[in-house]
């Protein structure tokens, strides 16, 4: 009896020690991400569950941070010393994050990671920092392409535009008063003049210039910018609200049949086909003045220096980069997977995947300099809107952008 009691006590003590042991080894990883549709956080919860089942000592606290101030919040949390362990971020922000000395290199971990060979094309190289280290684990990517209404193009005997000139011609033909379009006013081009519209403007202007000093103010670049402004001011092929229109406005106008062409990426393909069925398709952006440029939008996970659970954080980052898991993450965001094996199983209609793939040859990220973030959020929208409303000239707008990137 006493022996039994003793062994029971021993077992209980052992269990308690074990419990304490696991409790102290338990690691919490704070993870920030964003999805456009809050419904899709369920998919993320499933991913977390799968991961935690495989790694019982690690708890993932995944937080869906609203997109509108995702990066403000991230930067402030870093400055306040409260950064998450891992967050989804973009290449364009890497220079600022490095300047803040906020992120942790993962070069060694990547070299030893078996999943590396499955990563598509040169995604890792694109994400490599100027100091030669890797900080970003690719998560998903998109390229801006042109959505167009196949039925309207067929009706007016038009081909999807391959050049600027084709684009203008199609936009003119597809700008119709309500009386000529079954009671709904139609505009050829759903121009995005508000925040985020730099990737609509890029194919027309950045195809003919670059961000190098004085390149933006060259006569060719200024003329390209005037051409873009004229789409609204002279040819009136965009809705009069264009200078204020953002993502929601251009998407809803296109879906409701009020515009015939818009620029966006595969992230909206699902919603487009739900609304318009096979009346919508996509092609790469037109080439202008002999050049071609479209926006390469990337998202990666990165680890913060302040993290106290770096090993667990890396496990989570690499988990999200594996074929099946990555596909599931992309299902939540609607963007494209980064693995070769996953690309074969992408759920999007083939025409949108093809338009994205065909765009990769000339798709480029925004310049990898600290000024880019402010260019996107403030400098471009403010100057574009003023130019679209005739407050400043095309040259003044290009001059302001050149100064922003190349002052001092």
């Amino acid at each position, binding site marked *: 009896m006493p022996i039994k009691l003793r062994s029971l006590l021993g077992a209980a003590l052992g269990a308690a020690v074990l419990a304490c042991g696991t409790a102290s080894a338990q690691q919490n990883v704070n993870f920030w991400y964003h999805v456009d549709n809050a419904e899709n956080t369920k998919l993320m919860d499933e991913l977390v569950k799968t991961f935690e089942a495989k790694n019982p000592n690690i708890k993932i606290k995944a937080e869906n941070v609203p997109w509108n101030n995702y990066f*403000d919040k991230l930067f402030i949390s870093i400055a306040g010393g409260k950064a998450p362990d891992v967050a989804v971020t973009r290449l364009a922000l890497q220079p600022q994050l490095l300047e803040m000395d906020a992120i942790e290199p993962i070069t060694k971990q990547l070299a030893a990671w078996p999943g590396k060979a499955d990563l598509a094309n040169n995604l890792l190289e694109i994400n490599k920092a100027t100091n030669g280290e890797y900080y970003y684990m690719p998560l998903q990517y998109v390229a801006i392409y042109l959505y167009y209404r196949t039925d309207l193009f067929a009706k007016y005997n038009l081909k999807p535009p391959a050049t600027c000139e084709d684009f203008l011609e199609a936009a003119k033909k597809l700008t119709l008063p309500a009386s000529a379009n079954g009671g709904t006013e139609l505009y050829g081009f759903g121009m995005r003049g508000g925040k985020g519209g730099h990737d609509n403007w890029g194919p027309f202007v950045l195809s003919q210039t670059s961000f190098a000093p004085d390149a933006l103010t060259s006569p060719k670049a200024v003329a390209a910018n005037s051409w873009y402004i004229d789409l609204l001011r002279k040819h009136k092929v965009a809705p*009069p609200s264009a200078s204020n229109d953002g993502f929601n406005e251009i998407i809803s106008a296109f879906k409701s049949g009020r515009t015939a062409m818009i620029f966006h990426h595969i992230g909206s393909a699902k919603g487009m086909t739900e609304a318009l069925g096979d009346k919508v398709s996509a092609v790469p952006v037109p080439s202008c003045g002999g050049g071609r440029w479209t926006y390469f939008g990337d998202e990666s996970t990165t680890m913060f220096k302040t993290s106290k659970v770096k090993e667990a954080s890396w496990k989570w980052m690499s988990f999200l980069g594996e074929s099946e898991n990555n596909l599931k993450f992309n299902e939540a965001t609607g963007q494209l997977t980064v693995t070769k094996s996953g690309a074969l199983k992408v759920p999007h209609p083939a025409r949108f995947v093809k338009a994205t793939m065909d765009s990769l040859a000339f798709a480029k990220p925004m310049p990898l300099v600290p000024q880019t973030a402010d260019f996107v*959020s403030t400098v471009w929208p403010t100057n574009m809107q003023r130019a679209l*409303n005739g407050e400043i000239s095309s040259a003044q707008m290009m001059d302001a952008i050149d100064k922003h990137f190349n002052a001092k």
Partner: protein
Amino acid sequence: MSQKSPTSMLPYVLLSPAVLATVIVVFYPMVQAVITSLYSNILWRPRAVRFIGLDNYIAIWNDPVFWASLGRTAIWIGLTVPLQLLLGLVTALLLNQTFRWRGLARSLILIPWALPSVVIGLMWSWIYNPQVGLLNDLMLRLGLLQSAVPWLANPDTSLYAIIAALVWQGFPFFAIMILAGLQNIPHSLYEAADIDGASDWQQFWHITLPSLKAVLVTAVMLRIIWVANSIDVIYVMTGGGPGYATHTLPLYALKRTYASMDFGYGSALAVSFSLLLLGAIYLYLRRVGKTIE
């Protein structure tokens, strides 16, 4: 002395939690903002933070966007508050009459005030939409317009369009405050005036308005402060655009701070605006507040 001290200390002891909370929550951030405004402090350049004295303020003085935003802030307050007051006064006078569905009307009137600003911003931006918006549709049908107007995309109309939305949002506050004031006016005053043969207008001018004075002065002051600082509706409807057309000073400070991450300049803008607002409220109370006891 030793006998007196417990009672003389008591008020301070009782007040100290409130004072302490104010010091921590309000005073400390204020001092911090003033200090930050004296630095060149761009959030993503933590190694380049340095003391620059009044340079941010000198830059503000030479910043055309600051002056334009200040002008728009004056229009913003100068139109919104009086229009809300006027609409609120008329509504309160109507709601003070006896009629059948008065209780229901009094609760319905509160709806705009109770709605979150983001909802109001989104709702009104769709109302103003040139392609699918209600306002253009109505005006086109009534023949008031020849073609749809992009109210929010046109720099000449955008600020006024937002002001209209904000007037709609804020007038119930005045209506309810004034209604409460109206119910405190003794009925005997009106009876006496009736006997003396005063017209409705004379009764309003000589009894109602003077009796409401204290309520109006306080309500207007509160509204000036709230409207001046209110940026949520603008942010949702235009984000300050097109261009700078709907930038008010607090919005400009917010954008410089959080979009451009320039905390030094943004703080200097916020401090400058707070001082200007403080000055305006001081003048207002000196001129208007003096007349009430």
